C-alpha cells in the first residue's frame, strides 16, 4: 500500500485518493469559439508522461484537491501542494 501526502491530512493510504487529471489542462474559453478539436484536446487527449508527472488528485475523505508531483515509473512522490486559495 502506497501512501500519498494530502496537504491537509498528511500521509494517507492510496485507496483514499482519486485521480483528477493532468495538471494544466485548463478548460478552453470562450466556449462558443472552441473548435471540436479543441474540445477533444480538453476532454480526452493526454500527455500521459512516462517519468515525472504533475497531476491533480482529490483526497476523498477530506475533499482536498491538490497538485501531486510524482514519477509514473517508480511511483516516487516529489511534492504535494494544495489548490485552495486563502479565504478573503
Amino acid at each position, binding site marked *: 500500500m502506497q501512501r500519498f501526502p494530502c496537504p491537509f491530512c498528511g500521509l494517507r*493510504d*492510496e*485507496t483514499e485518493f*482519486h485521480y483528477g487529471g493532468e495538471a494544466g489542462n485548463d478548460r478552453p474559453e470562450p466556449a462558443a469559439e472552441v473548435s*471540436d478539436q479543441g*474540445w477533444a484536446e480538453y476532454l*480526452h487527449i493526454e500527455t*500521459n*508522461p512516462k517519468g515525472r508527472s504533475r497531476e491533480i488528485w482529490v483526497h476523498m475523505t477530506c475533499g482536498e484537491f491538490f497538485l501531486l508531483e510524482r514519477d509514473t*515509473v517508480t511511483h516516487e512522490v516529489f511534492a504535494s501542494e494544495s489548490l485552495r486559495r486563502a479565504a478573503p
Partner: protein
Amino acid sequence: MAKDYSTLRLLREGLRGHTGWQPAWRDAEPKGDYDALVIGGGGHGLATAYYLAKNHGLKRIALVEKGWLGGGNTGRNTTAIRSNYFYPESVALYDFALKLYEGLSRDLNYNIMFSQRGLAVVAHSEAEMEMAARIVNAMQINGTDAELLSREQVLEKAPLLNQSDRARYPIYGGIWQGRAGTARHDAVAWGYARGASTLGVDIIQNCEVTGFLVEQGRCVGVETSRGTIRAGVTGMAVAGHSGVLAGLAGFRLPIRSFALQAMVSEPVKPCLDTVLLYMGTGTYLSQSDKGELVIGGGLDRVLSYGQRGNPPLQEQVISGMLEMFPSFGQLKLLRQWAGIVDVVPDSSPIIGPSPLPGLFINGGWGTGGFKAIPAGGWLLAHLMATGEHHEISRPFDLSRFTTGRLIDEAAGSAIAH
C-alpha cells in the same frame, strides 16, 4: 510457408534424438531500408507483420522490438478470448478475432492451444439478470453466440462456486459464450513470429525506437538503438507505451497508462473447466493446462508505467476470488505480475492513421488486447498496405474523439476497463 510441424515429424525427430529441429524464427539484423516497418514485437505487432506478408504479399518487412518477443502484455495477460460486447462495431471486431483464433493453429501450423471452454459471467440480482438478458440479446443480434444461464446451469458449469444462502453475491444466473476460451499466450506470439519469419519478415529484437524520421511532413522510418531504419510505411502496436511513442512522433493520444495485474495459484488437479467472471467482484478465473488458477481483476487505480501491481488491488481481486470459490482459500499464490495497458475514454481500441502521415496506430486495447490479436494484426496490416480502413476498423479511428462518435463499451457491456 513451411508446414513442417506434424505428428510424423515429431515421430521422426523422436527416433533421431530431436537433433533436427531448427529455431522457429530468424533473429535478424536490421537492414537500412524496408517497404514496411512494424514497431512492437507483441502479439499485435507480430500478427501485423505476418498478415502484411501473407495477405498483402509485401516482401521487405521489418519488425522492431525493444525487448524480447512477447515480453510485454502478450506474456502478461490472463489468456482469455471472448467477444461478449454490446455494440455492433465491437462484436464485429472481437468476433472477427475469435474466428481467426478458431483457425489459427492450422493457419500457422503452430499449436496455440486454443481451448473453447466457454465463458460464464455470473449475475447476482434480478436487476443484473435484466442486464445479462440485454447483453445476450445484443450479442445474438450482432451475430455471435450467447445464452442466458439459470442458477442451476451456472452451478452445473462451476460446481465449486459459492452456493451459500448467505453469499454476498448470490448466483442468480449468467451470460454464457460457448465459443470463448483460453489460448497459450506465448504460443500466439511464437506462432506468428514463426509464420512471419518464414514469409521473410526481419524480426529484430533489442531494438528500441528512439525517434521518428520525418521528411516533408511524412514518417519515413525510425531512429533506433541499433541505427536508422527507413520504411515506406510504419505501424505501431506498442500497448501500454502508445503515449510514449506518440510523444516521440510529436502528437498526443486519448490514452492513460495503468498497471493491470494478474496472478496464479500453485497448480492443482482440474477443478474449473470454463472461464468465470463475477459481475459483483470483477474477479475472473480460469485454470491453466498446468493446473494453476489464473486470476485477474480490475486496473490499479494509480496511473503507472511500472510493470508491477499495487497490493490494494491484489487484495481486492483475491477477496473476490474467495467470495466466488471459498475452497480456493486453501491455495497458495505462486506468482503475481502486471502489464501496462492503454486505457481509452470509451474503452475501445484505436486503429487507424495517426496524426503523422505514414504512421498508423494499433493501440488502446485496455485490458483486452490479447483476445483481439489476430484482428488487430489483420486490420493494421490492411491499413499499412492499402492506406485505407478495413470496414471493421473504420469505427475505431482516432477521429471519433473529435466527432464524438464514441463506442462506449464501459457503459455498454460494463467491461471494467
